[in-house]
C-alpha cells in the first residue's frame, strides 16, 4: 500500500500573527515558517504505518511557493520516502489545493491519504473533506486512532463530547487531530539523508487545474478588544446573572 501525506508550510505555531497596519493581510515578513503541526501528525502516522510493515511507500505532497521544498524535506527527514511539490505563488485556497492533490493522487494511486485536520494559518478545516469528495472516497476526519483490518480502515474520531468509531472502505482519506500521535524529533543525520531523497516539482498548469481563488480577502483586522463588564456583589447575584441574563448555566 502506498500512503500519500499532504503537508502545508504555515506560520510557526510559536509565532503570533499580526495584521498589517493597512489591513491588507497578515504580516509574514521574516516570520518563522514551519510545517503545519497537524500535518506533522499526519506525516508521523504515515511513517508509523510504514514502519509497522503496512505500507510500501510514503509520499509527501505540498502546494505552494518554492520554500515548501523545505517543508517536504522536513517530512522526508522524519521518514517519508519522497516528495512532490506543486509549485505556485498564487493564493491557493482549499478547493484548489484539494483539486491539485487529487491530480497528484490520480498519478500516484495511493490507497490511503492522510492530511492534517486544518492549517493553523487560515483555520479552514476543509481540504481533507473536499479531497475525499472529489475522489469519491470515504473520509475519517479528526482522527485520534487509525487501524487497518480486513481491508477496512477503522478510524476513531474526536467529536464534540466524545469519540466516534467508524469503518471506511479503502482507499480512504484521513485527517489527523492533535491526539493521533506525538510526532518524533527529526534526527540530524536524517536531515542530511533527506537532502538526497527525490523531490519532484510540478506546476498547476501541468496538472490542468485552475487555481483561481473563489474567496476574496476584503480586509484583516485585529479582533476587537474585549471590554470589562460589571462587578457583582456576591455569589447569589453572580449565579442569578449567569442564569437569567447571560443564560449560560
Amino acid at each position, binding site marked *: 500500500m502506498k500512503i500519500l501525506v499532504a503537508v502545508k508550510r504555515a506560520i510557526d505555531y510559536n509565532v503570533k500573527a499580526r495584521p498589517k497596519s493597512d489591513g491588507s493581510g497578515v504580516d509574514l515578513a521574516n516570520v518563522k515558517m*514551519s510545517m503545519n503541526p497537524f500535518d506533522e501528525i499526519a506525516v508521523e502516522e504515515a511513517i508509523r504505518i510504514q514502519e509497522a510493515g503496512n505500507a510500501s511507500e510514503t509520499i509527501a505532497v505540498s502546494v505552494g511557493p518554492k520554500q515548501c521544498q523545505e517543508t517536504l524535506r522536513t517530512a522526508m527527514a522524519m521518514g517519508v520516502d519522497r516528495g512532490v511539490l506543486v509549485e505556485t505563488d498564487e493564493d491557493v485556497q482549499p478547493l484548489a489545493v484539494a483539486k491539485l492533490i487529487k491530480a497528484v493522487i490520480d498519478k500516484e494511486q495511493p490507497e490511503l491519504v492522510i492530511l492534517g485536520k486544518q492549517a493553523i494559518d487560515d483555520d479552514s478545516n476543509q481540504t481533507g473533506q473536499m479531497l475525499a469528495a472529489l475522489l469519491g472516497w470515504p473520509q475519517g476526519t479528526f482522527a485520534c486512532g487509525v487501524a487497518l483490518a480486513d481491508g477496512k480502515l477503522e478510524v476513531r474520531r474526536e467529536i464534540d463530547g466524545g469519540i466516534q468509531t467508524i469503518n471506511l472502505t479503502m482507499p480512504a482519506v484521513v485527517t489527523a487531530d492533535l491526539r493521533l500521535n*506525538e510526532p518524533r524529533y527529526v534526527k540530524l543525520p536524517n*536531515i542530511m539523508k533527506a537532502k538526497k531523497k527525490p523531490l519532484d516539482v510540478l506546476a498547476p498548469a501541468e496538472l490542468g487545474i485552475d487555481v483561481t481563488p473563489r474567496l476574496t480577502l476584503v480586509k484583516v483586522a485585529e479582533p476587537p478588544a474585549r471590554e470589562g463588564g460589571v462587578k457583582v456583589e456576591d455569589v447569589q447575584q453572580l449565579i442569578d446573572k449567569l442564569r437569567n441574563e447571560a443564560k449560560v448555566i
Partner: protein
Amino acid sequence: MEREAMEFDVVIVGGGPSGLAAAIRLKQLAAEKGSDLSVCILEKGSEIGAHILSGAVIEPRALNELLPDWKERGAPLHTPAGKDRFLLLTEKRAFPFITPPQMNNHGNYIVSLGNVCRWLAEQAEALEVDIYPGFAAAEVLYHDDGSVKGVATGDMGRARDGSEGPNFELGMELHAKQTLFAEGCRGSLTKTLFDRFDLRQDAEPQVYGIGIKELWEIDPAKHMPGSITHTAGWPMDMSTYGGAWIYHLEDNLVSVGFVIGLDYKNPYLSPFDEMQRFKTHPAIREQFEGARRISYGARAISSGGFQSIPKLTFPGGMLLGDAAGFLNVPKIKGTHTAMKSGMTAAEAVFDVLAASEDENAGRGAEITDYSERLEKTWLWEELRGVRNVKPSFHWGLLPALVYSGLDTVILRGKAPWTLHHRPDHEQLLPAAECTPIAYPKPDGKLTFDKPSSVFLSNTNHEEEQPCHLTLKDEAVPVTLNLARFAGPEARFCPAGVYEFIPDGDAQRLQINAQNCVHCKTCDIKDPSQNINWVTPEGGGGPNYPNM
C-alpha cells in the same frame, strides 16, 4: 546507548554574524583553492536569526571584505544611517551633546541583524555549508589528549525529571578537526572552555551590559528613515552606566532599546522597568504616541573590550565574535568585529587544514595563527584605541565623558595606561544599604509589563524538559539572594523567569524557564554565580522576527 557521530572538517557552534562569516569564508577559500571542505553550523534557535537581537547600526567594513557584491546579492541593508543625535537626559529635559567621534555613523546602515543573519545563511547555504537550526550544542567533546574533538547536541524528549520521555532521542556527536565557538556573549560552552583551558588567565574579567529592545511601528508622519538617536543620563543615576538608542528603519519601523551595565549596584534596579520608564521622557514619548509595539527581546553583550579579550585558541578549537568579546563599546557596535574575527579564524584554519594531504591535518591542533593574524587587523587596532572608555564609567557619567574625550580624542587611544574591570556579579550592594526604586505602573500603551512583552518575543520551550536554568545550590536563592539582596533575579531577568512566591510563611523561588529569552543575564549577574545557564532542547527560546 551510544550516540551516533558525524564527521566534519569544521564545526561552528552558533549561527550569528561571526559563525556565518567564518563558514562563508572557509567555503570561499575552499572554492578558490579547489579543495573539498565540510563545514557545519549548529544553531540552538529554531531558525537562523530566531535568537538574534541587536540595535542595530552596522558598519559594513567586514561585509565589504567578505562579500563585496552584497548589494547585488540583495543583502537587507536598506536604510543608510542618517542624522545622528546624542542627548543627555535629565528627568524633564534633553540636552543635545556633541556626538562622540566613535558614534559617527556616516556610511553605516540601520538593519535588523536577524534579517542580515538570515541572508548570510542563504549565502552560506549556496556555498554548501550545512546549517542545522533547532539543534543546540550542549557539550564539548574531547580527545584523549585533552584537545577538543567536537560537540554533542542535547538530548531531545527528556521529561522534567530527566527521565526518557516517549519520543526520546539521544543527542548526536559532531566531530571536527577544528571546532569554532561562536555562541555570542556568555556562551554556555565557551564558559566551560574558559575554565578548562584557563583562557581568561591573562585577561581582565569580562564585563557585560544587558540590552533590552522593542520594535515599534510608528505614525508615518513621525518616521524619519535613517534617524539615529542615542541618550545618556536619566533614568540612570549618575553612577550607573546606561543609555538608550532609537533608530528609524524602513517601513515605519523604529528600534528602541536600552543598555544598562551589569555592574550596577542597587539590587532594586530593574533593567526592564528602566527601559519602560525611559520611553516616558518628554523628549522621547511623543514619537511613540499612537504607535504599535510589535516585538520585544533582550540580550546581554560583552563590554569589557580589549583588555578582557581571553586567549582565543586552544587545542582543537577557537573563540569567535562576542563569545570572545569583540564589541567596540563606545561605538556600540560588534557586528563588524564579530564578522572580522570569524573571517580571520577561517583563514587561519583553512591554511592549516589545506596545508597537507594528510586527512588528519589540523585535527585537535591549536591554531595560534588565528590570534596572530587578528592582532594585525583593523579589529585589534580599533578595540585597543577605545579600551579605557568603559572602565572610566566607574567614576560616574560626567567624569567618564570628560575622560573618554581626553583618552580617545586627545591621546587617540595611546594612553600609556589601561584601566581595569571588576566582575559584575560582585558589584551588588546589600539591599539594606540601597533605596528601593518605585517604578511607574505600565499603561499598556507606551509602557508594558513583562508577560505582555515576552508574549511578543514568541518565546517557547517544550514544556516537558529539565529546567535549563540550573542552580548549583537550591538554597541560595532564598538564603543569600533574597535575604541579602532582596531577590535581584526577579528584577534583572527581563522575561519574568524568576519569581519569588509565598510558600507558607516563607518564600520560594519559582523558575518559569519557558519564558527564558536566552539573554544570559542571570548567569552573569547572580551574586554568587549560583545560576548556571545550560542549553535547553534545540529550537526553544525566542522566535524574533525582524529583530
